[in-house]
């Protein structure tokens, strides 16, 4: 059971990573990151079956943090949208070199 859970977790995580890599829209990338975090949560839950409640506590902690991150992140995305009228990362490259 553990192996299957971990495998699914790894697959989900990889999907998240690939999503980050190939998508250009900031919102979608952020959603992919959330997918990665939740993939890890799955692992934590799976481990917690063996080691006790610690993993579950961690999941709750991650969810809280993710919520905070989402709040800040969306605000930042809005801020850039105000300047650029786009959230396509392809076009956001004022800073380089």
């Amino acid at each position: 059971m553990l192996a299957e859970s971990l495998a699914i977790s790894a697959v989900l995580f990889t999907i998240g990573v690939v999503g980050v890599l190939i998508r250009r829209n900031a919102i979608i990338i952020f959603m992919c990151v959330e997918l990665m975090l939740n993939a890890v949560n799955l692992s934590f839950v799976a481990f917690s079956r063996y080691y006790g409640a610690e993993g579950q506590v961690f999941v709750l902690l991650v969810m809280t943090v993710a919520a905070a991150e989402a709040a800040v992140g969306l605000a930042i995305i809005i801020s850039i949208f105000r300047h650029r009228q786009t959230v396509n990362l392809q076009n956001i490259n004022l800073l380089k070199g």
Partner: protein
Amino acid sequence: MILDLSIPGQLITAFAPDMLLMGGAMILLLWSAWRPESEALQRNIGIASIILCVTVGVTIAYYVARGDSSGVGVIAVDNFRWTADIVFLIATIGTIALSMDYNAREGITAPESHVLVLFATSGMMTMAAARDLMIVFLGVEIMSVAVYVLAGLDRRSEKSAEAALKYFLLGAFSTGFLLYGIALVYGAAGTTNLSLIGERVGQPGIAGSAMLIVGIALLLIGFGFKVALAPFHMWAPDVYEGAPTPITAYMAAAVKAAAFAVFLRVWLEAFATASDAWHGPVWWLAVVTMAAGNIIALAQKNIKRMLAYSSIAHAGYILVAVAIGTPAASAAFMFYLLAYTMATLGAFGVIVALERRGGGQLQIEDYAGLWTVRPWLAAAMAVFMLALLGFPIFGGIGFFAKYWIIQSALQAPAPQTLLAVVLVLTSVVSAGYYLHVVMVMFMRPRSEGAVAVPPIGGWTRFVIAASAILIVALGILPNSVARWTQRSGNRPPVATAPVAAALPANSTVR
């Protein structure tokens, strides 16, 4: 006394300085929300923040004097933590001092900027205190979320917004790896407590298990991103350039120091016996980081960007201390953080002093002939550059910082001679860009139609002067500071079996 963290009262005692800072920051947040935004309020909140930091610092000094320690638990009570806290607080005070002048000039009247710095600092102090991966994660996130916002503080600046976005997206992305690493280590060791992990990674069955190794590797990547190791460094130049200058100073000094502090603690407490698994990658990361940071810095024209690459290079130097992994190295590491923090703050102080509203006068060329108009400012900048370069006497304590790292590299049971040689060789490369700044200031004539240097704010002056004087003074008589930081290395190592014995042969010269 030895605090028993399972007793709530004693846990609170152990965590009191951090909580003091958090609580104070919340009160200041309420105050800033209560009153309408104004220049005066911004300044008052700033001064109050500095007072708060000083108070926390005094508290820490009291703790140092008490000499408490703790048993197994989520919080560490040791000199390493206190020393790191002092470094964070110095950087915080410097940042807030610079911010007050900077915000006034840029028309940023939001007083919560200082409060956000305080929150980030409390996250850092949490990181330094963490002896459990859960606390590690918590601290990292408290710090990061605040710094994401700080990077985008200047809402009118497109660059600032872009910096924030990049930092946020890549930071969150790397958090994924960090978290996955934590999960796998937890899965392998069955606990998130660092001391317990440290005991268990050496046990047969766990040592060398794929899950543990991959977990360690992912943690390395996660921390590597936070401290900007090549090739996880690419966010740093853009973010450093785009963020408001005092915040850049904060990121370069404090954020890096905090990330390194927790990095080192996790590594030495939890993974010391697994050095087989990580020594090679850490060694290579150090080399690549030192090389890439220094070499790419040579091509920079914008001073903030240049210092960004320089801070990447310094991450490489500090990583050498991690790779050595002895108590002496962790003392050297702390000493280095202190020296680096002062030099960075000073250098960014000069940048703040010379920057024009809206981000003008940030090219290195704009500093041409600075010496002829502001000799002492130019001299101070020269001191900071030489300190970052690690030059004796004129670069003050910066030299001894590198010296100590090299010394501990050579003194380790398995001497890291080659790493020391790489360190000094890449330092020579760094002379190319640090001295470029000095050269431009002193040896180029003031260009025609150069903008007159305006009067420099009092807080900025204070930061610059204090950094310069401390750097030089401590560079001539470093003994007391060295002794003080040395105690941070003498933390009772929970599971530090001789790291070196198991190191690969190719990393030694003999």
